[in-house]
């Protein structure tokens, strides 16, 4: 037999609650308890609202560039819902909904986008990593974090998120390959939202799916409707179970759409058609779930207004907390460079407002030294 089959495979697509409201009982029944469903809905609404708050903060100069999550809430939320609270969640920058579910405080995320590293000092017990702006780099860290857990015999997997665009980076390939070959249980979640800034996803992959990016590594691959919280939960359950029981990785493409601009620095009208956006608005994960809950009498207008009011207050409080944090000390950025600051760096810090750099103060002529002494005490006074 000169021509034989070396490899054969198939990738499934999961959809449970579709955009028209059809619900697949076989897969969906009992998947998410009603009480949880309401909480998941509330989480999505809260995140969506914060997007708007953040947008206004940016427009009024109170925050820098901000990437809205609008339309993609069900992806990271579905994942966070399925993961254990002590599994690692290693995200990019558009997974607020999942992070908040984990308990990451909103003010931290806001603070980060307000240009303050303290917003990236993720609270330890939440098993989440900092926000990553550089693309494609965090998946390797997810693999390392998980291997460290395995090394210590801990029962902990990781789930890592990245976009259609980021999956073109070489580090993506290396992360999947390391996880597969070194047997590290990581769930790789590609959020295909069809755009990487202005670049359509077909420029990032000519293949029919992003899910098949996992085939290279012999991983189980799945595709699901990322705007359907039932589908993301279903796909995650299957994948988490695979990772946890086999100790090896797997891959999910969640098909979703970014309804907003790429960030507040972007103007999506320059490069994409409003018709496309409108079509996706009709597939909004929040609307879809609300309709379903209303039909099932789990939700009504009164609950909706109460929710909106509560969320508005919560988000306003978060903004107040973020803005209420005292400005960092002007020399703050010196102090977390090393566990112990090297002497030369300490000198740079201590003379930053009094001397030109590279000038050893003791070398200065007497009058300049005197002036420096004065400035140092003035500067010290100013900081108290």
């Amino acid at each position, binding site marked *: 037999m000169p021509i034989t089959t070396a490899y054969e495979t198939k990738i499934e697509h999961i959809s449970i609650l579709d955009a028209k409201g059809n619900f697949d009982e076989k897969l969906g029944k009992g998947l998410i308890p009603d009480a949880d469903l309401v909480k998941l809905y509330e989480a999505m609404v809260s995140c969506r609202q914060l997007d708007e708050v953040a947008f206004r903060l940016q427009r009024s100069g109170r925050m*820098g*560039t901000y990437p809205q999550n609008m339309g993609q809430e069900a992806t990271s939320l579905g994942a966070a819902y399925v993961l254990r609270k002590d599994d690692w969640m290693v995200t990019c920058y558009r997974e607020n909904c999942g992070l908040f579910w984990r308990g990451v405080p909103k003010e931290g995320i806001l603070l*980060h*986008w*307000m*240009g*303050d*590293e303290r917003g990236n000092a993720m609270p330890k017990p939440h098993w989440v990593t900092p926000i990553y*702006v*550089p*693309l*494609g780099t965090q998946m390797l860290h997810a693999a390392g974090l998980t291997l460290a857990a395995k090394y210590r015999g801990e029962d902990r997997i990781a789930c890592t998120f990245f976009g259609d*665009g*980021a999956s*073109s*980076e*070489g*580090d993506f390939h290396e992360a999947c390959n390391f996880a597969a070959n070194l047997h590290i249980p990581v769930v790789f979640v590609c959020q295909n939202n069809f755009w*990487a*800034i*202005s*670049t359509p996803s077909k*420029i*990032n*992959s000519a293949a029919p799916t992003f899910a098949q990016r996992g085939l290279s590594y012999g991983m189980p691959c799945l595709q699901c409707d990322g705007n359907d919280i039932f589908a993301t939960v279903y796909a995650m359950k299957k994948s988490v179970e695979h990772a946890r029981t086999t100790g090896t990785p797997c891959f999910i493409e969640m098909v979703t759409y970014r309804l907003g601009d790429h960030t507040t*620095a*972007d103007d999506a009208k*320059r*490069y994409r058609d409003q018709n496309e956006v409108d079509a996706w608005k009709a597939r909004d994960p929040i609307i879809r779930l609300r309709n379903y809950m209303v039909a099932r009498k789990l939700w009504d207008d009164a609950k909706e207004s109460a929710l909106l009011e509560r969320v508005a207050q919560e988000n306003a409080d978060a903004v107040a907390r973020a803005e209420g944090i005292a*400005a*960092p000390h*002007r*020399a*703050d*950025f*010196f102090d977390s*460079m090393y566990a112990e600051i090297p002497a*030369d*760096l300490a000198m*740079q*810090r201590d003379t*930053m407002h*009094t*001397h*030109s*750099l*590279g*000038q050893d103060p003791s*070398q*200065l*002529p007497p*009058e*300049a030294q005197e002036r420096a002494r004065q400035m140092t005490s003035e500067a010290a006074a100013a900081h108290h």
Partner: protein
Amino acid sequence: MANLNLVQAINLALIQEMEKNPDIVLLGEDIGVNGGVFRVTEGLQKRFGEKRVFDTPLAESGIIGLSIGLAMGGLHPVPEIQFEGFLGPAYDQICSHAARMRSRTRGAFTVPMTIRIPVGGGIHAPELHSDSPEAIYAHTPGLKVVMPSSPYDAKGLLVSALREPDPVLFFEPKRIYRAFREEVPEDEYTLPIGKARTVCEGTDLTIVSWGASVVQCMQAIEKSSRSIELIDLRTIYPFDMDAVAQSVSKTGRCVVVHEAPLTCGFGSEIAARIMERCFLQLEAPVQRVAGFDTTMPYYKLELDYLPDAPRVTRAIEDCLAY
């Protein structure tokens, strides 16, 4: 003659050279329909077509590696790296391949390529969007490194880069992309790579700087009562040591100003060379005003990190007082 900002000057240089040289192609993330995140390539895809101006997958090593192949194949690619912080993934292709191709094949293959890169801080951007890595590339033989500080210079230097037979890193200081306008001739002109510009003449002290810092230096000079000469290096490699040495031989004092961290920044090379060339004329050690040896902070503190006019003033005073 038009009154242009830096973005427009670069855009104009690209248009004019692309019209002359059909081998020039532009590629990068979001440079096509979107015109680049800073709009530097605005309108170029429409004008020259998708064959000559095209979006790539999101992968910097790929962008540079593909460009190297394009250049080996006889074209002059102009890849854009969206922010200098994303040069990292392309470091190997730039330094181990583009920089070495001519040398390792003894000229059988060459890499005429102009890598365009927005650089530096001051625009309130997120992490890895505000760095100044020019010294890294100046330390890598086989590359040329250019950083204009004004629209006029940008056009003249870019046209030269686009005619270079070797790889050029063309750093565009984003802080001054739209900060000011100046008269930029429509007519063809070039500025030589490797030659500095004396921005203003003086006799008491020489300032050497490049990129957006030149603006901070000018502010400091305006406030100073002393006669200060300002040299804008314009190109970091090859650098115009003759111009610097001549000036410092005259003034006997020098302050170097740049955004990158102090240690092993390009200022250290300038300082070392000044010592070598002007030892007997020097009346004070060369002062360096630079970024600190820390990671560039997020934007709340970026102005505390970046050299500003008061810090330059302090250095001038210290140096003169020595």
